């Protein structure tokens, strides 16, 4: 069975290549910072399971310190100029989109065809991670397709990949760090405490008030924790279950489903949901780190109100 470990090795090798190429990049004044930063990420992927908890903790500390002290620069590997790209676009035309289309096609192939295959009594792909394994496979196939079809130099995937990686910079590691922070919050019981505060201080004897507190609480709590999954158990144990489902007799499927989607409205509005909000801003080279959030708030707020109305109408 192919497990996620194979994907980690691949990711580790790619990050290791970014680290080596960064170290050799004389144009980047902070090349050592970049080399160590991506080197630590490579180490995490290649050896994370043998480092031990403390070793991993020290590794994370190293990442945070490099980023925090501004030791990370931006590599500028040699690439094609704007004019060359215009000319290449002229020459290749629609063929340019083929690698980008190969990616989703291979993902779908992996999920629909490879996932159900059984080999020697076991599944070919670890069923829990089949999508991610398919995505890694798709990334490799699509890169090779691009190299051959567009006749690009063999080192270009790693050099261009490094350029994009440096564009995202430290923000690339923020989602994983926040997930780890969520685990520490859970260990310290932060969620339960906030849940008690909300339910302890707001009277919820009217059905509409209770629905509104639950939906707005899901969104607000998601904004603080950065993740609707962290908010759901707390708000549902505090309000959804005892008050909306038991006291007022609301349909559990409606309450839970629309409650979770209210949390997603919060996800659209928080910098703590870094992979959806801050990473794209870095990737698109937007000067305002919060530009994507600002574009989302006018959709998220009315949708949150709509969720309150929908739950009030549909659940009872």
């Amino acid at each position, binding site marked *: 069975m192919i497990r996620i470990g194979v994907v980690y090795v691949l990711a580790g090798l790619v990050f290791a290549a970014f680290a080596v190429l960064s170290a050799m990049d004389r144009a980047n004044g902070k090349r050592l910072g970049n080399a160590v930063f991506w080197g630590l990420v490579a180490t995490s992927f290649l050896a994370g399971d043998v480092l031990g908890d403390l070793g991993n903790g020290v590794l994370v500390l190293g990442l945070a310190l490099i980023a925090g002290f501004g030791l990370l620069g931006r590599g500028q590997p040699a690439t094609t100029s704007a004019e060359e790209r215009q000319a290449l676009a002229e020459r290749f035309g629609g063929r340019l989109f083929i690698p980008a289309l190969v990616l989703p096609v291979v993902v779908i192939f992996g999920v629909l065809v490879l996932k159900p295959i059984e080999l020697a009594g076991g599944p070919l792909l670890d069923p829990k991670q089949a999508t991610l394994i398919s995505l890694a496979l798709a990334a490799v196939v699509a890169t090779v397709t691009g190299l051959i079809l567009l006749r690009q130099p063999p080192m270009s995937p790693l050099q261009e990949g490094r350029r994009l990686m440096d564009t995202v910079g430290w*923000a690339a590691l923020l989602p994983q760090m926040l997930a780890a922070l969520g*685990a520490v919050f859970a260990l*310290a019981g932060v969620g339960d405490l906030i849940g008690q505060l909300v339910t302890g201080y707001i009277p919820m004897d009217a059905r509409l008030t209770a629905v509104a507190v639950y939906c707005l609480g899901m969104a607000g709590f998601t904004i603080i924790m950065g993740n609707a999954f962290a908010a759901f158990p707390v708000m549902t144990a505090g309000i959804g279950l005892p008050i909306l489902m038991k006291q007022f007799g609301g349909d559990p*499927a409606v309450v839970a489903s629309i409650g*979770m989607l209210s949390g997603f409205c919060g996800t659209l509005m928080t910098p703590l949901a870094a992979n*959806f909000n801050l990473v794209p801003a870095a990737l698109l080279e937007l000067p305002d780190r919060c530009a994507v959030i600002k574009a989302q708030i006018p959709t998220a707020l009315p949708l949150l109100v709509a969720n309150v109305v929908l739950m009030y109408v549909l659940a009872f």
Partner: protein
Amino acid sequence: MLTLLGVAAVVVGFAVRLNPLLVVVIAAFVTGLAAGMTPVAVLEAFGKAFNDSRLITVAYLVLPMVGVVERAGIQEQARKLMLRLRGVSVGPLLIVYLLFRQGTSALGLTSIAGQTQSIRPIVAPMAEGAVESHGGTLDDDERQRVKAMAAATDNVGLFFGEDIFVAIGSILLMVGFLATAGITIDPIHLSLWAIPTAIVAFLLHAARLLLFDRGRRRRAVA
């Protein structure tokens, strides 16, 4: 109550624009120490959780492919395509993408598109091209607004599509949580009740995209 200091540390740290990676580490220490853990125990807990969450960072494996097609001019080609398709302006373009993203996510195909592999190389340049083909000029502010709107459209489509698919993490979490509370629920009911919100999300965001489009044209005329 002291454990909430970690949450405060996050809010303050982001507000004073300290590097977010540093903010996260500080918040972890504040929370852990307030809860009575030793510094080493906090570092161990944080390191273990970081190692367990590596699959989040695997997504960057698509960057080399994106880099190769960018080197060969995909952004220029995407923009040119929109200059040729003069009839399509930025609003309808992003509405079609929203529909595609929400529809495929509802079928469980959340990984076939995304910010890295679709928005940066293809959709954002197409959106810029669509504004330019309708006489709009893109100064830095305007370019940022168009790109941010493209990124926002991907998120809205993903979030309010994926919950219609039965076997997605959030549905499994809800089923599991309700089961521990003694409520047995068929996942398909959770999926079905995600549809009303999905429809409202589509209508709301599509209406905003049309208004956004009209705003761009008004700028073009003025």
